[in-house]
């Protein structure tokens, strides 16, 4: 979103708040990408020896019922099931959440605590516009991580023969992107509402834990069942997430992202900006 009339001498990544926010995360994204890639590659390399273990099915049938559903252990004898339970049901969601929440908190609350927000706000750009560009940059960053995850997952599956199809991987990666985005946007919202980075991290982190507890409780206790569908965790993870197709639940996640963003936009106009220092 470069602004019209920008001097041609301006580096591309400094032409808008959106691009500058992406510039800030570029090194981080490289690091996260390498980490995620190594993780997926390691698990994929373990898979053949796991598959060839004798009596593996007998071992899993002894797991309690909720464990079987939570980590999808019954399906662990397939490539999809293995990667799902090893990575996509806990490890990767946590990594996406940590990345997105950290970014979301830094985008506004971080700038306010650093003192750089002052000059940024005293420009012709409205606070709404600035928040919208920052939200877009956040989602773009999470999406980029999802893309890396997709490419690595497909590459591993094809070269090791895990049988994860393009659509299977798509649903898994999309659920990570949507889940990360929603909680990252909640961090952005909490930061925009309070100006405090600690709260901008604590609020979405607490909500994520609560959502996970609700999801797990729904698996354990039948009376919780109708409520667990409110949990973004259940919306993202219950269907697979690898190989879950494109469930309607993803729409709820997308809607959640949209609602949080819209609620965030007027927040900086409603409160005092803390003075630097």
């Amino acid at each position, binding site marked *: 979103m470069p602004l019209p009339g920008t001097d041609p001498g301006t580096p591309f990544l400094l032409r808008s708040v959106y691009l500058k926010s992406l510039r800030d995360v570029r090194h981080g994204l490289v690091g996260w990408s390498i980490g995620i890639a190594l993780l997926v590659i390691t698990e994929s390399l373990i898979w053949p020896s796991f598959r060839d273990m004798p009596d593996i099915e007998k071992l899993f049938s002894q797991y309690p019922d909720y464990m079987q559903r939570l980590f999808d252990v019954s399906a662990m004898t397939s490539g999809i099931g293995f990667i799902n339970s090893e990575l996509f049901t806990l490890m990767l969601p946590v990594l996406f959440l940590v990345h997105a929440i950290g970014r979301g908190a830094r985008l506004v609350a971080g700038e306010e605590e650093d003192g750089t927000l002052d000059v940024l706000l005293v420009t012709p750009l409205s606070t709404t516009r600035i928040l919208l560009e920052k939200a877009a940059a956040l989602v773009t960053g999470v999406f980029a991580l999802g893309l890396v995850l997709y490419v690595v997952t497909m590459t591993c599956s094809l070269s090791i023969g895990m049988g994860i199809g393009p659509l299977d991987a798509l649903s898994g990666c999309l659920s990570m992107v949507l889940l990360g985005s929603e909680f990252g946007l909640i961090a952005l919202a909490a930061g925009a509402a309070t100006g405090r980075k600690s709260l901008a991290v604590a609020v979405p982190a607490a909500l994520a834990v609560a959502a996970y507890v609700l999801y797990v409780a729904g698996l354990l206790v039948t009376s919780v069942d109708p409520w667990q569908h409110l949990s973004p965790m259940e919306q993202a993870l219950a269907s697979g997430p690898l190989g879950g197709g494109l469930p309607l639940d993803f729409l709820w996640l997308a809607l959640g992202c949209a609602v949080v963003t819209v609620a965030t936009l007027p927040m900086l106009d409603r409160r005092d*900006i803390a003075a630097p220092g």
Partner: protein
Amino acid sequence: MEAAVRTSGLRKEFRGTVALQGLDLVVPPGSVFGYLGPNGAGKTTTIRLLTGLLRPTSGTAEVLGLDVASRPDEVQRRVGYLPGRFVGYPDLTGGEYLRYLAALRGGVEWSEVDRLADRFELDLARRLGTLSHGNQQKVGLVQAFMHRPDLLVLDEPTTGLDPIMQAEFLSLVGEASRSGATVFLSSHILSEVEAVADTVAILREGELVRTATIPELRAQVVRRWDVTFVHEVPADVLRAIPQVAEVRVRDRTAHLVLAGSAEELLRTVAPYGVENVETHETDLTEVFLRYYTHEEEPWRVA
């Protein structure tokens, strides 16, 4: 012409503490306005209200004829702002930082940035994180001036600048003012703005205690005289002289504070036998400090 800044009943409270109590301020267009006051007087609070970073508890602020609360973006387009504690992005070079802000503002001529950087002897190729405090402050000043705003709002602009750069800054303020801009700058000390300010306002504990032009303040310059008498000091006679603002007696010497002409004093004391007169030079600072420290009204010119 409309005022560059006009506030009426502008009040700001922070959870119980009153930072600004019903400020009525008018800054004439094209003027250089020095906004003075001791620590905690409310200078920064006023400036953040004018730039739309704070919401007033009550009252209104108009900048360049625009209501800040309802049209903040138009105000922010036409204002150049230097925060009291300027912080840029440490990983960007000065040039990159200014390019970014120029892109967000639009319509900045880069030659103007180069000119300002030259004036401040600022190396735009260095990262802000590696610049000294004073050099970072210069980057803050350049971003405030670079789009040739109609109003400059500068919170303690000279902090961290060496005397040569302070002089350079003051000449930039003069140039901006001559080309029609209004400059609103805060400071702790009068001498810092004396040379460029047309008008000064003195704030104390969130209240305006005085608005005056520099010549008006100068008329208030007081002198200290120590008059030693041959015999006893005629204290009551001295106190009766209108230009004598204060009398303290020690032994045979009267320590006087004199505002205005000394003519009547000299005529009155002559018959009492004056042994010695010692005068001490004073300047505007002394007038000014009175507003900071004294609860009562400072001396008036008789």
